[in-house]
């Protein structure tokens, strides 16, 4: 289950979407990225503005999920990223992984969020209380 959305992310709905509660899996590992209210230099942050090249980002989500399956076995993944303004404290990204055992669930979840951050065509701009903003450095 892979999506780029503009509305708030509901992690519980993602669990259901991947069948995490169907009885086949013994563990669900979830990572939620949330917007911090302070920049690295301490400035108050009101929101992060996310932007994606959606078809490429979604294709990358699918590749990442396929890789996780090859590496960690029978896992069901949801990868969802929000775009537009995401206020401090809100969820910008969710990776939900169901697996038979917890080791595989944790490993696949961490693998997927790492890969998403370094590979998916998504960008973010920090927005400050005074109305100014700053695109955060990404990975080339």
């Amino acid at each position, binding site marked *: 289950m892979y999506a780029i959305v503009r509305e708030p992310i509901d992690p519980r709905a993602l669990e259901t979407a991947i069948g995490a509660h169907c009885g086949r899996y013994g563990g669900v590992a979830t990572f939620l990225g949330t917007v911090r209210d302070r920049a690295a230099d301490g400035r108050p942050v009101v929101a992060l503005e996310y932007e994606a090249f959606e078809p490429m980002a979604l294709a990358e989500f699918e590749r990442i999920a396929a890789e996780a399956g090859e590496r960690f076995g029978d896992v069901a993944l949801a990868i969802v990223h929000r775009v537009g303004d995401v206020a401090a404290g809100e969820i910008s990204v969710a990776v939900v992984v169901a697996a038979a055992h917890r080791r595989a669930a944790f490993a696949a979840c961490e693998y997927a969020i790492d890969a998403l951050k370094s590979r998916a065509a998504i960008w*973010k701009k920090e927005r400050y209380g005074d109305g100014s903003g700053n695109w955060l450095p990404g990975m080339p």
Partner: protein
Amino acid sequence: MERVRVRVLAFARIRELLGGAQRSLELSPGARAGDVLPALAGEVPALGALADSTRIARNGRIVSLDEPIRDGDEIALLPPVGGG
């Protein structure tokens, strides 16, 4: 000589510098992927400094800078990514 007109998609900092997410651009015949950003830098000089860090996707697929561009291509200019 064949006309090479492409649709340019710009993201993040590049989009802001260019003043929009999409535009069309006419390139010289025989143009390659690496020619797109310099062509736009003629109009928006600040883009020139971003050429080294920008990746080019041609029709949704990352390509090298010497990839030939065809008329009708969609060329996306991708700054270093960093979602999450």
